[in-house]
């Protein structure tokens, strides 16, 4: 269960457990979290539970609401976040909000709107227009490499291998891709009767890892692979 730890000067003053109700924060006694500090407004901020999230919202307070030093209007609380109120700190503790394991399990939850059957007059944005970003971890490693063409129509030009796959050769005739993975770059035959050559030797159906200085040929193009 999530909780809030109120402290000042490093001393814990109180702990609040977050259940399914909204929780008001401010100087006024009606709030669930009452902070007696002149920098705090009467009704300063509120924490609203939505699904697995607790969303912190500033209520137009005079001095603003700060999380980990950044001023926010609305913020999805993360385990360990520190909300600052004058000389008081409110730390959000929710191990569930950091453990990726069980939260990933798909579960059913009541929707927020009565979803009418989407018809032509559906006012909501089309799925195409509203894209929710992926949950891909920012720490995902992307190695850097490039190729320099030595033979063929693109000779002497350089191409950065900065995408997940890069095509070589002619589609419909003879083609290979170089795939960028966390642990390196791999060349794979895609189509055509002649497989690409790496350092003069034809590769099979399996991907072949490339090392700095490797030369490979796809059709009439030859390139040198350079990795940082």
């Amino acid at each position: 269960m999530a909780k809030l730890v109120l402290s000042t000067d490093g001393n814990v003053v109180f702990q609040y457990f977050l259940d399914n109700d909204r929780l008001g924060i401010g100087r006024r006694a009606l709030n669930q979290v009452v902070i007696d500090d002149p920098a705090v407004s009467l009704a300063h901020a509120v924490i609203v539970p939505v699904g697995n999230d607790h969303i912190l919202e500033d209520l137009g307070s005079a001095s603003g609401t700060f999380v980990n030093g950044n001023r926010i209007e609305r913020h999805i609380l993360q385990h360990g976040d520190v909300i600052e109120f004058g000389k008081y700190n409110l730390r959000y503790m929710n191990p569930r909000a950091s453990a990726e394991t069980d939260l990933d399990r798909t579960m059913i939850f009541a929707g927020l709107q009565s979803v009418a059957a989407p018809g032509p007059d559906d006012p909501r944005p089309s799925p195409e227009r509203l894209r929710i970003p992926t949950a891909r971890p920012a720490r995902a490693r992307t190695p850097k490499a490039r190729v320099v063409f030595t033979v063929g129509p693109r000779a002497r030009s350089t191409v950065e291998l900065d995408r997940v796959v890069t095509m070589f050769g002619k589609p419909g005739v003879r083609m290979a891709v170089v795939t960028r993975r966390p642990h390196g770059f791999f060349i794979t035959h895609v189509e055509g009767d002649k497989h690409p050559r790496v350092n003069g030797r034809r590769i099979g159906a399996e991907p072949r890892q490339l090392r700095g200085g490797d030369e490979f040929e796809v059709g009439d193009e030859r390139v040198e692979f350079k990795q940082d």
Partner: protein
Amino acid sequence: MSHLIIEAAGLSDVGSVRQYNEDSILLDAERGLMVLADGMGGHRAGEVASRMAIESLLTTLHDKVALFSPDDDPVTLRPVVEQSIIRANDEIFAAAQSNPNWHGMGTTLAVAVFHGRRVTLAHVGDSRIYRLRFNRLQLLTRDDSLLRDQVELGLIAVADASSSHNRNLVTRAVGIEAQVQPHLRDDEILAGDLYLLCSDGLNDLVDDSDIELIMNSLKVNLPLAVHHLVQAAKDNGGHDNISAILVRLREAAPAEAPRGWLGRLRAWWRSGVGG
């Protein structure tokens, strides 16, 4: 009008973290029937639910689709698909009531039934259907998910959605309640179209732009394309099961002109023999 040839490849992978794969997929290129299900529930009941959904749909649709000639009005398939999903819902819901270990189990669904020059698409939950047409990827389904509701209602900004923990909460699934209302749509298909059915284990970890790039680069080799999609999700963390089905549609008649003198000779020979 000739019919389009359907080619398909699919993969369902446990991912890099989970112990079990609760996704199930079905590919029947001959009948143009593609189903993907992402199960949920404790005690491995998610596996039971997704497999039950696949088997139920296979049984119902397999027989019914054969009754329709591809030249029939394609809209007639829509109620057939809808009824088959409702039936799967009934079966899973009844099974869940009968076994305490299965209580609360359910599954998402993404269904595509290709028929003549049309496709009937259906989905429940957050499994998705995309289409690649003229090298551009388009999402055709709207996720039944809490996070999507929140973003649509303006409760959280699109940019903040990645810090939400509500990604796994679906607002609709098959087998959870006595009733289910699937989302259905019909589309005209074109030669060259590529359809992708996937579980959230893919699109949660691989950006649409990367999905588009992989599909565009590898569309001539469907098994390799599917493998690359799943691999990309695993490389980005693979914290969920990952399933993907790719379907390519192409013209039945060899449209391309024969190449070289030998090709032309062969074509001339074939046309002579064929009358």
